[in-house]
């Protein structure tokens, strides 16, 4: 055993570069496999752990203050499946913005709640807070969810300014806390403020009532069944449409799925990457042992003549790779210690839950043992080939080097570059090696191209994601009051020189049902979809008549209807049939949207009329300036006016301001549509009405999308970049090992060619050319695999395919990279003189 160990160690010493490279591959593999498997169990339990920690309720419903009635809570308490309820009040608004560290206004959905109300819903865990004395000295303290700390780059003591219309509310960050819901940017952050600040914000923003409940049964879908029961009772007993009344519904199962979905996707990608590297490791071991046996046949003969058995020699090879793998596994395990916390942090950022991810040791041990056994088995199977060479045959260098086969690409037919033909001859001579290399590179290319597509699709806050958002991303989306005449306003705005286009729209606020499938989705309507810029039909065409509609890809899969099919759609008690004219890609609302013409939606909802304007500005027009113009011309938005405190101006101006403030309050809180007033003061009668309040709020959907997707974009971008770098390093190592081993194996042949007058550069070029067929095959098959993989994502959201020219450019870059690595890897030829090469 001692002799065999020495033999193995000696071999490692002789091939230091290959040994280190292989150990690096094993290390990467171990790091990825160990870290991902260590994190997977807690990714499965992150939601439940957080629920237990915060003692939160499991299901939530949110009703706007004007739609809420205390009977809703009583009805909920009566439900058979419900086990305990709670009621709390909070502010929630989708038009809010904040001022970032660069002084720019960024869109962000925000919720505000007081400490007392928050305590009714969950047990808060605060951390990174200012001291009690410091907090007490703050005029406007605010606590934010922990994920906001990283996403908004804040720390305790920082100023956090909330922008509501034209009003700015300055807060000081008192600390951070863990929360079970509204903990990430997609639904918005729930922030804890004091009662005074809450009241001030409530004057400007919408108040909501949150009803929370647990279910008696905790089986899968029990939450959804409880919601269904409640909806039924709601409509039967309260005689109201539940879908019209409820603003938001969060059920246990959906929240659980969303909480760890992104993290699990990344962990699965890591495992896939580890599998790719494992295949590469297997190929490299197979190739290296084959090369070593061929180049060391004489030594094998000597050892056999000295009395070593084939088993001894095979075992020495196996031991060599066990030692190399053990070093790689040890380094990889150490890497796990550093990588796992990074994964945890990424997972926490994506889930919005802090401190609930734990590493498990057993999966790391299992990964290490698996890798060691895998390497040993591969090494033993290949090295067992030595038994084919008894001493005499080994002395004669076997018959492996002898060629009796077909003469591939005879040189007499050379046209053009002789080096390329010489390289191709060698490639055909070692066809199995090329196939093995192609297989490894295919997996690496598939990883890189998939990462590239995901990076372009999700990792960049670019127009690409907007393209598949399934929502119009105008410069300014103006929500109008119920009394405003949308068409007249649109016509007026179209005359403005800054305006390029104005479209009448119904944003996703109407929930519709498909009674045949008992499923729901949000409806959107435009008069002429050809005028839209971001709603892309991937199949069929836009709806043109009032009996036509489009579905998103997800809706299509859910409902099972195709273009040309007729579908029943229900809104309230009205039910109409529509023909599916087209399929749209969409990411918003979980991909569940339906698209009608305005006339079509009116057919379904007779009282419907467009109440939003999508305003597209010309190039160079200032968005903020135009927004100010809209505010000045068409009345300040309700949210601005409700909290108007300006006391300057003449007596009449102040009276009008006070009257306008009251009108704004009535319209916002009670949905009042017509207000007229006449105030007598001495001889003066001051009259007015609510005609100036045409604007309810302004939205900038692109900004909101940017903020909502910022965290997942960052995580996706980071992980795809990391995977691409790892793939590149793996490819580089494989090619370097291949080149190094080829130079060793063909040292004599290369020396002869040098002797004939081939320069080092020409020989390096020939060696690099040799991998071209394998690389081209890998690029083609790898890209096809990547497209198939991303096609599964397309099934969900539609057209997530990067333009083919970009993929081709990426492929060319991969090809050049591989060629460059091969050329660079072959540079060892330069260092060896022709005399040395031939003297062996």
């Amino acid at each position: 055993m001692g002799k065999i160990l020495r033999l193995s160690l000696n071999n490692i010493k002789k091939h230091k570069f290959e040994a280190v490279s292989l150990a690096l591959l094993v290390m990467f593999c171990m790091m990825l496999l160990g870290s991902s498997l260590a994190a997977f169990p807690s990714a499965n339990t992150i939601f439940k752990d957080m629920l237990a920690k915060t003692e939160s309720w499991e299901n939530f419903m949110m009703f706007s203050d004007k739609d809420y009635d205390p009977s809703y809570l009583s009805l909920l308490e009566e439900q058979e499946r419900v086990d305990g309820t709670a009621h709390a009040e909070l502010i929630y608004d989708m038009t809010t913005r904040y001022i970032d560290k660069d002084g720019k206004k960024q869109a962000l959905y925000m919720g505000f709640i007081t400490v007392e109300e928050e305590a009714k819903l969950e047990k808060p865990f605060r951390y990174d807070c200012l001291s009690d004395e410091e907090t007490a000295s703050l005029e406007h303290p605010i606590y934010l969810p922990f994920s906001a700390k990283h996403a908004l780059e804040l720390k305790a003591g920082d100023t956090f300014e909330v922008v509501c219309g034209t009003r700015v509310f300055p807060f000081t960050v008192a600390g951070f806390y863990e929360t079970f819901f509204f903990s990430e940017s997609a639904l918005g952050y729930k922030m804890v403020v004091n009662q005074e600040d809450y009241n001030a914000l409530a004057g400007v923003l919408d108040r909501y009532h949150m009803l929370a409940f647990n279910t008696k049964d905790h089986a899968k879908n029990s939450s959804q069944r409880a919601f269904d029961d409640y909806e039924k009772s709601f409509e039967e007993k309260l005689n109201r449409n539940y879908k019209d009344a409820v603003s938001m519904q969060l059920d246990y199962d959906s929240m659980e799925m969303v909480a760890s979905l992104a993290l699990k996707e990344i962990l699965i990608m890591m495992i896939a990457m580890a599998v790719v590297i494992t295949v590469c490791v297997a190929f490299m071991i197979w190739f290296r042992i084959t090369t070593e046996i061929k180049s060391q046949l004489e030594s094998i003969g000597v050892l056999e003549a000295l009395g070593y058995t084939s088993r001894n020699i095979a075992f020495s090879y196996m031991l060599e790779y066990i030692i190399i793998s053990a070093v790689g596994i040890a380094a990889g395990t150490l890497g796990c210690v550093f990588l796992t916390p990074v994964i945890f942090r990424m997972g926490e950022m994506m889930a919005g839950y802090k401190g609930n991810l734990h590493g498990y040791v057993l999966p790391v041990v299992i990964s290490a043992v698996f890798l060691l056994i895998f390497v040993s088995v591969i090494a033993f199977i290949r090295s067992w080939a030595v038994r084919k060479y008894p001493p005499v045959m080994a002395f004669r260098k076997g018959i492996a080097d002898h060629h009796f086969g077909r003469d591939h690409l005879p040189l007499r037919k050379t046209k053009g570059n002789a080096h390329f033909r010489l390289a191709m001859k060698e490639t055909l001579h070692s066809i199995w090696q090329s196939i093995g290399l192609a297989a490894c590179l295919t997996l690496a290319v598939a990883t890189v191209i998939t990462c590239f597509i995901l990076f372009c699709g999700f990792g960049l806050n670019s127009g690409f994601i907007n393209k598949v958002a399934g929502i119009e991303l105008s410069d300014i989306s103006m929500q109008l009051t119920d009394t405003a005449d949308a068409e007249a306003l649109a016509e007026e705005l179209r005359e403005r020189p800054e305006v390029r286009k104005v479209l009448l729209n119904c944003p996703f606020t109407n929930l519709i049902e498909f009674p045949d499938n008992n499923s729901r989705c949000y409806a959107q309507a435009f008069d002429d979809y050809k005028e839209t810029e971001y709603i892309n039909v991937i199949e069929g065409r836009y709806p043109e008549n009032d009996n036509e509609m489009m579905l998103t890809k997800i809706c299509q899969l859910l409902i099972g209807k195709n273009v040309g099919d007729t579908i029943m759609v229900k809104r309230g008690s009205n039910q109409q049939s529509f023909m599916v004219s087209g399929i749209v890609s969409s990411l918003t609302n979980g991909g569940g949207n339906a698209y009608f013409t305005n006339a079509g939606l009116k057919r379904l909802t007779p009282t419907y009329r467009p109440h939003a304007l999508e305003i597209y500005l010309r190039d160079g027009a200032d968005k903020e300036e135009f927004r100010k113009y809209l505010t000045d011309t068409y009345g300040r938005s309700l949210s601005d006016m409700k909290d108007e405190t300006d006391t300057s101006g003449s007596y009449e101006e102040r009276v009008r301001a006070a009257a306008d403030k009251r009108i704004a309050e009535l319209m916002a809180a009670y949905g009042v549509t017509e207000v007229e007033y006449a105030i007598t003061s001495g001889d003066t009668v001051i009259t007015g009405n609510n005609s100036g309040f045409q604007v309810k709020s302004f939205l900038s959907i692109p900004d909101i999308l940017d903020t909502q997707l910022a965290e997942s974009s960052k995580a996706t971008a980071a992980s795809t970049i990391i995977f691409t770098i790892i793939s590149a390093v793996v490819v580089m190592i494989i090619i370097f090992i291949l080149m190094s081993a080829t130079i060793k194996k063909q040292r004599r042949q290369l020396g002869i060619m040098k002797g004939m007058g081939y320069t080092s550069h020409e020989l390096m070029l020939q060696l690099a050319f040799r991998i071209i067929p394998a690389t081209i095959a890998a690029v083609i098959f790898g890209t096809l695999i990547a497209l198939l993989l991303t096609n599964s994502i397309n099934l969900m959201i539609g057209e997530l395919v990067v333009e083919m020219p970009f993929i081709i450019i990426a492929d060319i870059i991969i090809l050049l990279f591989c060629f460059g690595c091969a050329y660079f890897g072959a540079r060892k030829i330069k260092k060896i003189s022709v005399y040395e090469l031939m003297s062996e």
Partner: protein
Amino acid sequence: MSSSVLRTEKLCKSFSNGGIQQHVIKNLDLEIDKNDLTVIMGASGSGKTTLLYTLSGMDKPTLGKVFYGDEDISGLNTDQLAMFRRKRCGFVFQSIYLLDSMTVFDNVMTGALAAQKNSKELVSKVETLLKKVGIGEELWKKYPNQLSGGECQRIGIVRAIINDPEIVFADEPTGSLNSSASTDVLDIFTGIHDNGQCIVMVTHDIKTALRGTRIIFLEDGNIVGEHRMPDYGTDDIKERREGLQAFLERMGW
């Protein structure tokens, strides 16, 4: 007008082995005439092969200069040396060094394509030369391991002369061949020399040395003696042998 094709000035070649310098060629001045078949002889370790590799640009001298005409090749880098070799030198090795993975024809073509572009004339030239050295068409598609040593060396010679080099260097070209094959190979060398090819050959075999017109004796990296002979075949072979043996005896052979 000088007919010298190659000359050296104070040529030195040393090797470092474990920090110990081993001086193999020492201040050697040599001139090779283009009409000669120069044979370098000497005891084992006298520096014959090292001199051949240094003269042919296979290896760089440690000190001194090697001139081909007026061109000094001692300052060329490895790639420049390769370019030089492909155009101006041919090399025949003791171990033959054919490319195992290539057919007979492709072995010669590989050498040819290093310096020339493929053409019908080139293919025809390869065919002619192969036939000329007795490698018939039936062997062209065979691989080196399917041929005898003599056949392989003949292919090696064709490969060395395919680019019409100024000098052909041969390192013990018959060292690994049997007597009959050696004679065949030497006949080829004599034939190409008769056609005007300058040849520099290293050997310690008298039978091979007899084919030379100029014998140089090397000892410890220095030329210690030189012997001239007329062209092979124009003189009585017995007289040639006696003359050479007498010279070698003087050299302590």
